[in-house]
């Protein structure tokens, strides 16, 4: 069966052109040209045809919290949002810190609508005490290690993990990426939102920006010492962005991501006391939002991620302090980037497709230019179509979107995962 995307405008790392795209039985692009026709023809008129998005930071909750999300539902939401690959965080229950759980996540991912890229914890049980079996996991193809959900506090252990990871480069075929959730727990302890004017007024205990910044600073120093590749997750403060900019200028092997919510929302949103706005790291100030946008624009930040973190309605029906942190992101990410990042489409695609694909080690099949022979991980987007955000209408069993009721521009019409049309006319298949 061949599929042809007809009448669209291709935009990729090579530029843009008005061409049809034919996808063959092997899941690869067979040809690109004018007036192509296949067994299935999908209308792309008025749309852009782009490489599928890659999200470096997704919580799929399986195994362990299947009432909030499953790999299947998460991948469906991803496909609806234009993603063709999701990097699954290891803070599952049990923790993804050993071959068995990695294998389970991978197996469940194979049946889903996106490519699921398992990561593994840096430490056993994410407890920050003992190193996980990194060599064994690297041999299974795991390329990203993270204790996301919390930062690795012990600087000595962090140094050792960095050193150890540099010895695994040949086995993986590329440098191992260590992804850090930067938060010095003793400084953020007891805080539930950004510490500042709003937290003081609302009486919600705050977490100072410095809790994030101190760990960014520490890890840059340790990268200088060890040469390991450190990926900074969800940068949220102006100083964090500035430090990463400095580290890159010094030639250190660091990369960084920022989430959609950290460049679209501020701590003022917490005034509603609705824990849908509770997230770690917390929503920051206008100045921080501006700094994150600048970091996205000037190349300091390599990727837009979602930190998609589903939580059941029940678990969010609590006071702000006691509700779990996290918000949905997969289905709103592209539209928000389009409306609020201040970047043009090629800039957004770099941050949402080929740059994160390279960090995830899947740049051979995601984010690749739309030319014959490449893998057909693609999405077709109507940039002008508007839609209204509804948590209930999303693929996730959870509905904790902070953008409820907002009308956004840019809607995914079709998504192709390895050549398979998994979203057609805005509806997910299977």
């Amino acid at each position, binding site marked *: 069966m061949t599929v042809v995307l007809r009448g669209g405008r291709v935009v990729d790392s090579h530029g843009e052109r008005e061409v049809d795209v034919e996808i063959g039985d092997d899941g690869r692009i067979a040809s690109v040209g004018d007036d192509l026709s296949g067994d299935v023809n999908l209308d792309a008129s008025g749309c852009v045809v782009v490489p599928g998005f890659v999200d470096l930071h997704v919580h799929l909750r399986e195994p362990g919290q299947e009432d909030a999300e499953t790999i299947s539902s998460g991948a469906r939401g991803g496909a609806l949002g234009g993603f063709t690959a999701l990097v699954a965080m290891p803070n599952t229950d049990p923790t993804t810190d050993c071959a068995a759980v990695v294998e389970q996540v991978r197996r469940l991912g194979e049946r889903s609508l996106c490519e699921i890229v398992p990561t593994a914890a840096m430490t056993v049980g994410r407890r920050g005490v003992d190193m996980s079996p990194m060599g064994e996991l690297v041999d299974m193809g795991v390329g990203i290690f993270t204790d996301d959900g919390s930062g690795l506090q012990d600087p000595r252990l962090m140094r050792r993990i960095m050193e150890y990871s540099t010895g695994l480069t040949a086995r993986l075929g590329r440098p191992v990426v260590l992804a850090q959730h930067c938060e010095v727990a003793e400084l953020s302890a007891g805080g539930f939102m950004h510490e500042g004017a709003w937290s*003081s*007024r609302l*009486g919600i205990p705050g977490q100072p920006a410095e809790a994030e910044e101190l760990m960014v600073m520490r890890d840059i120093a340790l990268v200088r010492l060890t040469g390991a590749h450190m990926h900074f997750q969800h940068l949220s403060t102006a100083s964090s962005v500035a430090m990463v900019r400095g580290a890159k200028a010094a030639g250190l092997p660091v990369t960084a991501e920022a989430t959609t919510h950290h460049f679209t929302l501020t701590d003022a949103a917490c005034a509603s*006391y609705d824990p849908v706005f509770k997230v770690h790291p917390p929503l920051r100030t206008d100045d921080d939002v501006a700094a994150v946008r600048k970091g996205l624009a000037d190349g300091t930040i390599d990727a837009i991620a979602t930190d998609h973190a589903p939580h059941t309605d029940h678990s969010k*029906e609590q*006071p*702000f302090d006691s509700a779990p942190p996290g918000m949905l992101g997969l289905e709103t990410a592209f539209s928000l980037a389009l409306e609020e990042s201040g970047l043009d489409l090629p800039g957004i695609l770099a941050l949402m497709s080929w740059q994160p694909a390279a960090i995830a080690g899947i740049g051979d099949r995601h984010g690749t230019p739309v030319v014959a022979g490449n893998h057909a991980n693609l999405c077709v987007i109507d940039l002008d179509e508007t839609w209204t955000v509804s948590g209930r209408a999303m693929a996730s069993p959870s509905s904790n979107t902070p953008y409820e009721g907002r009308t956004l521009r840019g809607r995914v019409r079709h998504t192709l995962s390895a050549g398979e049309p998994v979203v057609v006319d805005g509806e997910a298949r299977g």
Partner: protein
Amino acid sequence: MSTAVVASRHLLGVDGMSRQDLEGILDLTDTFAEIGRRPIPKVPALRGRTVASLFFEDSTRTRLSFETAARRLSADTMTFTAGSSSLSKGESLRDTVEVIGSYGADAIVVRHGMAGTAHRLAGWTDACVINAGDGCHEHPTQALLDCYTLREKRGDLDGMRIGIVGDIRNSRVARSNVLAFSLLGAEVVLVAPPTLLPPSIEGWPVTVSHDLDSVLPDLDACYLLRMQRERIGEGLIPSIREYAADYGLDARRAAMLPADAVILHPGPTNPGVELTTEVATDPRSVILDQVSNGVSVRMAVLFLLLGSGLDLTPDSVPSDGEVVR
């Protein structure tokens, strides 16, 4: 009068209230204070109405004050405390509130250790929600009773200089009072070490001092906040001894206060910490007046929120002839 309070159906905080709202409640409180002085201090104003106390945090004083106020208005009362309900069984806050609503509560008085809880409840129930303290956020009826007490002792707050001393950082009483005192035209000075101030006071209508002695001679009122021993473990102060030495009101410091100044404390006091026993019995201390005014203010609030359909002018409050016996 108090249109915003009545229109919102809830009393969640002083934040968002107008000067007219505050003054309206204080004016109405006079009437209820008078009822409290009668031989049988009870009127049928809220007969058939139910006031539920939902206390997730211990506070015998505030709960008794609200329940006394409700009973003096002939309302039925019910009490939920965290230990005696299913709150520890994983029930969500929303479930709990919906259950209480289904028992027919017309008003829910809520105390919770976390900020914003009353705001959350207000979105989930048809009952009127009265915030009886939410974390470090607000305690609006405390502010109302403090304003009423100040007005009773010293007249109009306009132009008064009020010092609030102590753990402002962790105090809902301080947040509500800063707003209420300044709404009524008073000048507020916060007196505390930097660690006991909020991380940011951007936009707060206050000045700050770390030197109580220098502030005392110019005060019309000195408001002492309760100090808790936990603050030592949190690294906020070195010791209670040092706190008392620097910020406690002893006889020497009390002598620096003007003769007509008043000394307030939300209670319960820690003798020898915020103030010495000697100062607690100083004629300028109005701490017991605060307690009795608390009942009157809470009667006024319950009456305003639940007495809809009534003319809300003080004259319409039921007279002696309607006293329930």
